[in-house]
């Protein structure tokens, strides 16, 4: 972020796209959150959608009501007021997300699309472990499950959380996306692409490496489960997800609870400031895991 100048751009006549940084960092994500939070609080007439994303954000507006120049001036003002992240408080939730790694359904999909992968001889998990310098896939899974992730963006399809791990930069995992996107990904597949982990809300196309399957849903259009009473999507930007490796037995138990409509995420409401994370990511991660499971 050192010498990057924010790019303000027209997305046709109804969108303003603001790229705060080309690379992903926790800091830039907090900045995008801060600007869009302030913008939302202003309730400017003519704004239709405010969409924070990882290292950028986007606003949909009605140019018949709000001229682009006026909106951009305001966004620039908000950007400079958000340089200092001290006055931002993030209302978050700490959430335990149970994941079955190397499950049979994801494995079938992995094998079905070997011809679209960088390394057809390995599984996605073996490949990701190797190129990130882990000696085994078990050690790699330990790294993924050892520290929680910040939900840094929601999108692609309803409820899909892009998650960025709260670890120092040198420990960040990064993997390429498939060479050619797949036509099929299982529902609730736990994937990884670029610097982000995701849970696919519904079955469909996808390009992320596939490691396993979440037992719990992130999308429930029937709104049967208690966590979905207010919205058909569960994740919110600013949430902190801990992906926890589980056994097949626990997976089946959780699935039975989901089917019965009784499943609720293990979670805690939690408020934090960006600085708490930025000054010591490892210490922050340890603290929130303690808070989620022990306090």
């Amino acid at each position: 972020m050192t010498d990057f100048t924010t790019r303000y751009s027209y997305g046709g006549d109804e969108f303003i796209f603001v790229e705060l940084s080309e690379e992903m960092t926790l800091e830039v994500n907090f900045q995008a959150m801060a600007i869009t939070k302030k913008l939302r609080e202003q309730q400017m007439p003519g704004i239709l959608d405010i969409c924070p994303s990882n290292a950028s954000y986007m606003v949909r507006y009605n140019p018949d009501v709000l001229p682009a120049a006026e909106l951009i001036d305001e966004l620039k003002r908000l950007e400079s007021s958000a340089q200092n992240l001290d006055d931002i408080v993030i209302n978050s939730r700490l959430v335990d997300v149970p994941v079955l790694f190397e499950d049979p359904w994801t494995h079938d999909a992995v094998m079905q699309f070997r011809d679209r992968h960088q390394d057809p001889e390995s599984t996605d998990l073996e490949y990701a472990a190797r190129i990130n310098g882990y000696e085994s896939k078990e050690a790699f899974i330990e790294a993924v499950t050892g520290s929680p992730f910040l939900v840094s963006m929601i999108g692609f399809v309803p409820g899909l959380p892009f998650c960025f791990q709260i670890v120092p930069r040198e420990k960040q995992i990064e993997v390429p996306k498939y060479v050619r996107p797949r036509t099929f990904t299982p529902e609730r597949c736990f994937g990884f692409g670029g610097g982000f982990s995701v849970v696919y809300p519904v079955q469909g196309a996808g390009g992320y490496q596939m490691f396993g399957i979440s037992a719990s849903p992130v999308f429930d259009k029937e709104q049967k489960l208690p966590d979905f009473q207010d919205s058909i999507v569960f994740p919110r930007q600013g949430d902190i997800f801990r992906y926890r490796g589980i056994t097949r037995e626990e997976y089946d138990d959780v699935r039975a609870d989901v089917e019965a409509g009784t499943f609720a995420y293990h979670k805690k409401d939690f408020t934090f400031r960006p600085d708490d994370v930025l000054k010591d990511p490892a210490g922050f991660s340890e603290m929130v895991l303690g808070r989620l499971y022990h306090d």
Partner: protein
Amino acid sequence: MINVLKPGLQTTVQDDGRVGYYETGMPPSGAVDQYSYAVANMLAGNKKGAAVLEITYMGPALEFQEDAVIAITGGVIPPQINEAPVPMWETLEVKKGDVLTFDFVKQGARAYLAAAGGIDVPVIMDSRSTYTLCGIGGFDGRALQEGDVLSIGNMQEKEVKPGTRVTGEYIPEFSANHEIRVIIGLCSYRLTEESKQRFLDIEWTVTPEANRVGYRLKGERLDFVPREQPFGAGSNPSNVVDLGYPIGSIQVPDGIEPIALLNDAVTGGGYAPVATIISTDLNRIGQAKTNEKIKFISVTLEEALEARQQNNRKLAEVKQMMQSS
């Protein structure tokens, strides 16, 4: 009630879209050609935002179980009542027992059928539009099927006399060669100068992968400016750190086959978008069929707003014509 005797290729309930949920990953959906949609509702005497049927390529066969007033606009998919041709862009009367069918598509790709009162389906997140990818809204979250029964609602605000029609400049023409205006921007800095120019010079061909989510186009490979990929973006030169995609934005995965996103867009992802179709011409790209040609014309925001105002003015004039009819 309307009985669906045959569903057509893809007939969905749509309105002016689902606004305010984009940040949760929910696209607006709604009629792809909002101009034709709005005129159909005016001809039927409906309030703004009433739901209609969006008919794609091949029309349905519908049996009316009650007297009704309807109007059909959009791409030319010639309608017939009891096998006799009836005009588009005109307020029509149907009687109980009448059967509405459609001839082969002549021009454009999508037609809009409004019934006075609107198609009545539950309002989900402020809209009746169908988002088939997740099975949300519309009729059971899906395209119509044989045997479905549709209800007509109470969104009528005015009785429009049968035979009322719009003419001439108010009826868009769709040829097989579409000029679509775009504003270059977003991550267009990723394309080489030469490829940015080629993007505008090439005549692109619509592939069979052309639906409400997006239109995939064929032409030639575009090149990206070489760089060391920023952290988090992924290794392909067309990759960026995952970001929000505007409706109408055009991305070029791996430099091959650009994809223009329409109303059921994926709301974000990791491919650099390089331009956005202006709102007025979103109405037109959805009227392009597979194998037809598209040429992108670069315009400024001012030109885009001028086109938008012209479009708004036309709709206001049609509305005026209905008021005085």
